[in-house]
């Protein structure tokens, strides 16, 4: 019999995070003997490009579809079309405002960023100036991580002052320059939260180039971030479970094809990791290079 | 004596045009061989093939008796052939010296760096030989057409070639410069260089050439020794008929109203206090040497350049002309001397160019073009001015130089202006067409239009004008009636310089 075909439309493909999701999905495809493809637009702002990808994916007569929607509403007309064609849809990474997706395999970015805020507060002693370098001002992940962090600080840590939030497109170099300017403008700054891999690396580079010791909390993993944590340049980082997200998405799709009942949400979890627990098998399993 | 160049049975077709049919030509060492023919006869095409710019379809070219193939300009240079193009071909951002020696720059030791001093020195030497005073370091784009033409000539001379092709070298030059050029030509001739000389100026032909070859419609008509052939014969060979000269009859004008009056026009430093008036039905000739400021005056009145002071009165009313649009609205038209840069959108077709100044007339609902009307109007001008073009949809850049000039004229005729500035209107136009244009000017004047004709050809000025204004260094040095005025009278006013001493003193004071 022909293998079932399941295209996954993600929010991106060049970032290491998405490459890890892809790896997980490919693993599941091998395990369950289905065929997948994985693609996403160049940047998380290109909502309509993603819609076109979804449209092309539907044209390929898929058995099921995985979607990490850039905008939870924009995709709905096409999802209706999928529904009409009886193609099950699995949402991943972030949800869709609709009951069409059978399940959502995602990280709770708001909660994860709040955890980062807690750790930051702990490490700087509950008071002082901090800043954020975020990858994107308008994308779901960017907004959730920023707001999750900022709101937790506002609620729980009145003595912590967020002096600057800037956006570097996840571009390592740009984030480096942004960090340097933030440090230059705020000589008393105690810590910076970098909201994705590129931003976090940028923060590390910037602090190193300016020779400033501050508390840096990152997000996701990757070789440089892991190294920075090991070397003590970075205090720690939040990791999601990208491989798990990919794996569980495909797995859910396969289950849906078999007619199995699915939970509405698959929480793939997140962890805070630092030098002390990096080698914990539970953590190291979700970290990628 | 083996001829330097022999061309036989040459054919060349462009899409839609058979430019050359079995063309023939021969050039001997030490000879000035004039190549004559109407606009679009194929003179430039033939010479461009010889210079490696176009490739021939069929036919044979021999250089010093040996059959050759000339695929590139470089190949022509290597064969000792150089050309002065009809249209200027300069790099405006580079200096005069850099233009002349492009591709042949002197190098310093190791050949890595350019030797700028040697470059300027060599250029200066050539200018000296031409008796031309010009700083080799001046940017070419800032020079007037005439000086640019002199640089083209200098460039061609710098090759020291055996065959020198001059395609209308004098079109932008005045008498003094032409005389200078002829002196150089005679010198080259004495050195055994063969010169192909293309021009529409009949008097030059007699003065400089040894033999003349006439072409018509891309075909060879005949070759004759110049000295023993009357000009009329050559003309009738060119056009296939004989022409009658037109002469402006000078009507009684003072009773006509003044349509344009210019008082104390100033634009530093090129125009200094110019005042004149122009009557209905009058042709006012503007004479002067290169850089006298005639073009500047016309452009300033036309609103193409801002003025620093002065009054312009049109039909009795003082007006402010801030842009060419204001001028055109007041019924003033200006035919530029540099058609390629200022006169034509050469990438567009004939009809579009003709309709450009008066597009409003060809609109329905003030929006949509009446294409049929545009087409018919352009066709009528193509007929009237004998513009040689396959159709009104041909792109202007594909037409021969003279025909392009006619399109500029057609454009302003179509606009139906009351006051017309013709800046060098017959530049590059053949005798037949020149006559047509003279007739046209006369007709326009007779219809009551007022015309300013700027021209560097004194015979033309004397023949066409009712009155002659002479300029020198931005000043109007005098006004002459045509009756009884000679070329010498005009030249005297044109060289009546005042600024030499003053400017010299100022320069000295500045150090």
């Amino acid at each position, binding site marked *: 019999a022909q293998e079932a075909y399941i295209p996954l439309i993600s929010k991106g493909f060049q970032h290491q995070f998405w490459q890890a999701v892809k790896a997980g999905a490919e693993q599941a495809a091998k395990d369950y003997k289905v065929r997948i*493809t994985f693609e*996403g637009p*160049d940047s998380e*702002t290109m*909502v*309509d490009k993603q*819609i*076109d*990808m979804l*449209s*092309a994916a*539907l*044209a*390929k007569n898929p058995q099921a579809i995985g979607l990490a929607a850039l*905008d939870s*509403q*924009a995709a709905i007309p096409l999802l209706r079309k999928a529904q009409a064609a009886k193609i099950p849809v699995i949402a991943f990474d972030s949800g869709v405002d609709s009951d069409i997706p059978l399940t959502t395999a995602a990280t709770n970015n708001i909660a994860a960023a709040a955890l980062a805020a807690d750790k930051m507060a702990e490490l700087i002693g509950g008071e002082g100036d901090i800043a954020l370098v975020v990858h*994107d*001002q*308008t*994308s779901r992940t960017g907004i959730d991580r920023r707001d999750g962090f900022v709101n937790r600080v506002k609620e729980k840590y009145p003595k912590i002052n967020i002096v600057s939030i800037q956006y570097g497109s996840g571009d390592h170099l740009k984030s480096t320059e942004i960090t340097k300017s933030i440090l230059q403008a705020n000589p008393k700054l105690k810590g910076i939260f970098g909201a994705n891999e590129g931003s976090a690396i940028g923060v590390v580079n910037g602090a190193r180039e300016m020779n400033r010791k501050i508390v840096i909390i990152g997000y996701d993993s990757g070789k440089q971030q892991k190294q920075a944590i090991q070397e003590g340049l970075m205090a720690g980082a939040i990791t999601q479970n990208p491989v798990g997200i990919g794996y569980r998405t495909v797995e859910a799709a396969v289950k849906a094809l078999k007619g199995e009942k699915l939970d509405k949400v698959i929480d793939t979890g997140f962890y805070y990791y630092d030098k002390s627990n990096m080698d914990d098998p539970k953590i190291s399993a979700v970290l990628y290079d | 004596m083996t001829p330097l160049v022999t061309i036989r049975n040459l054919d060349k077709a462009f*899409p*839609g045009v058979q430019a050359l049919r079995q063309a023939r030509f021969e050039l001997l060492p030490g000879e000035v061989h004039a190549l004559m023919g*109407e606009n*679009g006869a194929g003179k430039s095409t033939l010479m461009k093939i010889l210079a490696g710019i176009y490739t021939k379809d069929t036919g044979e070219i021999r250089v010093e008796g040996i059959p050759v193939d000339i695929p590139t300009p470089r190949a022509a240079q290597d064969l000792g052939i150089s050309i002065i193009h009809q249209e200027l071909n300069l790099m405006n951002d580079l200096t005069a010296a850099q233009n002349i020696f492009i591709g042949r720059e002197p190098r310093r030791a190791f050949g890595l760096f350019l030797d700028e001093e040697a470059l300027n020195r060599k250029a200066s030497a050539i200018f000296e030989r031409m008796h031309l005073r010009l700083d080799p370091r001046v940017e070419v784009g800032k020079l007037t057409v005439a000086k640019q033409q002199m640089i083209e000539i200098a460039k061609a001379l710098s090759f020291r070639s055996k065959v020198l092709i001059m395609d209308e070298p004098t079109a932008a030059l005045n008498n003094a410069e032409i005389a200078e050029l002829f002196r150089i030509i005679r010198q080259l001739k004495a050195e055994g260089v063969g010169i192909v000389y293309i021009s529409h100026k009949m008097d030059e032909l007699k003065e400089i050439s040894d033999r003349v070859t006439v072409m018509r*419609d891309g075909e060879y008509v005949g070759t004759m020794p110049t000295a023993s052939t009357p000009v009329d014969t050559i003309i009738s060979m060119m056009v296939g*008929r004989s022409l009658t000269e037109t002469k402006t009859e000078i009507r009684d004008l003072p009773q006509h109203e003044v349509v344009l009056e210019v008082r104390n026009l100033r634009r530093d430093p090129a125009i200094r206090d110019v005042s004149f008036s122009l009557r209905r039905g009058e042709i006012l000739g503007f004479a002067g040497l290169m850089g006298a400021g005639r073009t500047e005056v016309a452009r300033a009145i036309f609103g*193409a350049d801002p003025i620093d002071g002065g009054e312009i009165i049109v039909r009795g009313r003082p007006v402010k002309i801030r842009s*060419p*649009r204001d*001028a*055109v*609205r007041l019924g003033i*038209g200006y035919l*530029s001397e540099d058609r390629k*840069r*200022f*006169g*034509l*959108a050469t*990438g*567009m077709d004939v009809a*579009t160019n003709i*309709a*450009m*100044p008066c*597009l*409003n007339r060809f609109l329905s609902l*003030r*929006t*949509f*073009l009446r*294409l049929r009307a545009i087409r018919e109007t352009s066709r009528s001008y193509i007929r009237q001015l*004998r513009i*040689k*073009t*396959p*159709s009104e*949809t*041909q792109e202007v850049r594909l037409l021969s130089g003279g025909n392009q000039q006619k399109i500029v004229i057609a454009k302003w005729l179509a606009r139906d202006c009351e006051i017309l500035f013709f800046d060098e209107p017959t530049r590059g136009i053949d005798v037949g067409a020149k006559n047509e244009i003279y007739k046209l000017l006369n007709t326009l004047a007779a219809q009551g239009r007022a015309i300013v004709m700027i021209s560097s050809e004194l015979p033309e000025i004397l023949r066409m004008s009712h009155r002659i204004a002479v300029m020198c260094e931005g000043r109007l040095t005098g006004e002459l009636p045509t009756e009884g005025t000679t070329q010498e009278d005009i030249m005297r006013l044109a060289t009546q310089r005042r600024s030499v001493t003053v400017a010299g003193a100022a320069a000295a004071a500045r150090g």
Partner: protein
Amino acid sequence: MTTIVEQETPAVIRSHVFSQGTWQKLLAFASLIALMAVFSIASENFLQRDNLIGILQATAVNGVLAVAATFVIITGGIDLSVGTLMTFCAVIAGVVLTYWGLPMPVGIVAAIAAGAVCGSISGTIIAKMKVPPFIATLGMMMLLKGLALVISGTRPIYFNDTPNFPMIAQESLIGTVLPFLPIPNGVLILFVVAIISSIVLTRTALGRYTFALGSNEEAVRLSGVNTDFWKIIVYTVSGAICGIAGLIIASRLNSAQPALGQGYELDAIAAVVIGGTSLSGGRGTILGTIIGALIISVLTNGLRILSVAQEWQTVVTGIIIILAVYADILRRKGQG
């Protein structure tokens, strides 16, 4: 008295021109047809009605932007701001409809008017201040990108309170008449914009001046034409068309996404140039631009349908864009 022009010439040339025209029109499609043929052979999913409609749908935004860019490029200018201007107009529609709650026609007019105003500002900077178009529109691109974020409050604006809004681009007027041809309205708008623009360019004074400005601006000025005025008008029209693109994309996404837009200008300009319009100005057609936009969409869609790895999609797209333009150059050369 003989006339010099040969009798037969015009006739010969006319028939030549005619055959040339027809030929040219057919050949202009050549790259497009070739691409489609390749993809049809490679995948049975490609040549299906829904996919073809999807391709058209995907062309709508880029096609309209490319038409806007065509005007500017024919004048010899360039417009880098088309993408962010589109977004800005979408945001304006969002503000008018969702934040202020005004009726839909007001939102539509506001978006197009905003486009026209921004276009006229670019035009003024270029014509009056003599800032080169590249820089003027680069500045506008950044300015509008920032303003779109400021006005929207860096949030997408949803059109949920304007239930008819998705109709603009998504539903299918044609489909209600011809049920087997459910071409979405966005595509319809593209074709209407293209046809009107084509008429404007070939049949009106504005069009004539657009070409003339690109051909030799100084000569046009010296013909007594108010070149500054017409240049500003060209940019204004182009801006208004970007406003239409803004409506299409907003309707398609049922939201105004303020961060979107940058990068779209390159696709639009690529479509224009693939369509045979010269970047140095003076020549170009809307038909060509539409073909160019279709080539890009077909290529993108086809490679996706073939499930080519994404990094290779980029490689292939780069090569094909060069080859498509090269084919066009060869075609012209072949015709002299």
